[in-house]
């Protein structure tokens, strides 16, 4: 939070040239966290010019919480191309942030050390397509040759080389199953389609799992693919039943309408809910004034709620009923 607030304070542009002239490595490492991508790039190149002497001071920056600093530090190590940085970069392949893992995969490829291959191969199984693609490109750059068809399948899946992947038949299934974890629904659709094209019965459980996908297109493709894989149709509805539902909660709608009449309708997406809320507010105030004026003492509140509470209750039941009967989201 504090670094974010500090970012709001305008700062003088860092003169990377001077820092390089002074061989101010800590200053250059600090410049790697700049919000200005040009300054970051200049600092990376400057550290690259300094070379291996800077590695020892860049590596600790990889452990900092600042994401830009970590990205910049990885970029600087890629510029320096010192094989001694491989273990530190390999560590970054396990970073929870996908951009960092992607950058680390690219940096390992830039260094070009054979030692990096062992750390890049797991990158082919990453859930993020950028990391997989970066790992595959880096492996190709280092001259990695997968041992057999199974290895090539992971490699082609990471490169999204669908035609070659299809040619590998059943060998392609493990990487295709892995692609179903991808955040990009387009990738998942293609993976499910290809699983169907391969038509192997062993993919049944994975396809049934794909029926619970958050994306409609993936779910429907899983139905079609399961047909090609010989999955008995009777097994499919249960899989579809696991799909996420965006249903409105009837109790929430009722509760809102009871406490703040009209807002329960707003929760259900009715644009006129706010109007009912305003009208109800005006009626409440008017009743309060009228009753108080009638009895001369401040009994308005009691009478107001005596009249309005049954109405609120009815509105709550109505909102509950509406929510309960909202049409189901198309599967």
């Amino acid at each position: 939070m504090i670094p974010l607030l500090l970012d709001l304070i305008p700062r003088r542009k860092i003169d990377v040239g001077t820092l390089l002239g002074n061989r101010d490595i800590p200053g250059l490492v600090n410049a790697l966290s700049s919000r200005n991508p040009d300054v970051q790039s200049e600092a990376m190149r400057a550290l690259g010019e300094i070379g291996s002497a800077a590695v020892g001071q860049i590596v600790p920056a990889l452990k900092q919480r600042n994401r830009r600093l970590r990205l910049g530090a990885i970029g600087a190590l890629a510029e320096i191309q010192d094989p001694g940085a491989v273990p530190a970069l390999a560590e970054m392949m396990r970073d929870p942030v996908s951009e960092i893992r992607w950058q680390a995969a690219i940096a390992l490829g830039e260094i070009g050390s054979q030692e990096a291959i062992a750390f890049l191969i797991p990158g082919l199984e990453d859930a993020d397509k950028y990391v997989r693609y970066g790992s595959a490109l880096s492996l190709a750059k280092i001259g990695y040759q997968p041992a057999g068809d199974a290895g090539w399948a992971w490699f082609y899946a990471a490169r999204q080389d669908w035609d070659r992947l299809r040619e590998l038949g059943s060998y392609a299934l493990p990487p295709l199953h892995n692609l179903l974890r991808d955040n990009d629904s387009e990738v998942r659709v293609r993976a499910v389609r290809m699983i169907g094209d391969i038509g192997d019965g062993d993919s049944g459980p994975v396809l049934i799992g794909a029926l619970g996908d958050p994306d409609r297109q993936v779910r429907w493709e899983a139905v079609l693919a399961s047909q090609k894989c010989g999955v008995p149709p009777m097994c499919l509805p249960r899989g579809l039943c696991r799909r996420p539902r965006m249903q409105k909660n009837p109790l929430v709608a009722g509760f809102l309408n009871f406490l703040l009449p009209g807002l329960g309708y707003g929760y259900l997406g009715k644009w006129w809910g706010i109007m009912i809320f305003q009208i109800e507010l005006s009626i409440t105030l008017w009743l309060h004034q009228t009753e108080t004026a009638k009895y001369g003492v401040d009994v308005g509140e009691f009478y107001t709620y005596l009249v309005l509470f049954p109405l609120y209750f009815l509105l709550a039941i109505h909102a509950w009923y509406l929510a309960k009967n909202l049409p189901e989201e198309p599967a």
Partner: protein
Amino acid sequence: MRYDQFRSIGIFSVVPSIHGRGQSVPDIGQLKQRGDVSSLISLLNNPDPSVGWRAAEALGTCGAMAVPPLIRAARSPSALVRIGAIEALAAIRDPRALDSLTRIARRDRLLEVRWAAVLALGELGVPEAVPVLVPLLRDASPYLRYGAATALDRAGWQPGDIGDQVYLMIGRQDWTGIRKYGTDALLPLRDLLRDADEKSREEIVSVLREIGDPQACGSCRNALKDRNPRVRWKAVLAAIDCGLASHEIPLTVAGRERTGPDPVAAAVLNFLFLGIGYNYIGKWWGFPVFITYMFIIFLAQFIFAELSYPPVLALVIAYPVTALLGIHTYYLAERMSDEEM
């Protein structure tokens, strides 16, 4: 591959189990041996999906004695219990389940449960299921159409006319096969343009384009007004190939169903509660505008009351202004609603 064979290759053992965290795994094998149907039914709702799968599988082997309790379970409020019971009834294949499955296939609230019932009707293998399944080929859901087509195939049903044949092919998603029916396929294709699934509507419009018959112009007009831009674009191509007058196409597209905010609602809201209309069309500052407006109105009413003017004068002055802003919101909302053609 049949349902029971598929079960035997262990598909259900692959479904992840949530047990192993101090919870005891129910001994389904023992319950099955004892023929304890009611305990097995109670397991259908188990939070562990693998237990539900295996309980349904075990119930499917319990034979005719399990049918009456399973029919009762098929009316359970829990969707998982209903699906499990239907799966078991499908495996037992007892004709007594026909009425219950028919009712579920026609009326259940959940699509998945209806789909399971449709497939189970096919598993029963009784001719009485056919009249229930045939109308479902015309359902708006591709899942139910697919289920009905699969079930009818299993029942060995042969369509009586070309129309039914085309519906069956659409149900099977056999888009290539439909093309050869040419103009005979137009009526079912037009009927199913109301499909909830965009992909199916796209396929239907593509087939209309390939048929390229002037009789398809009406369907093309409907598709030109589709809420999905991809369907609309395919409809433009289809309309040209079917011979719809070119100058009609932009007019029809302009009359499409808009998916953005309703301009009238935005205007009414801004007229009555200035700012809420802006909020409705997605402007974050709408609510602060509303609060400010209300504050000014209350303040004005107070001042007018102090000056012995009627407080309602504040609203009389405000409404012409909010009316203008209401019109402004109307045009803003109209521009925002579904700009992509």
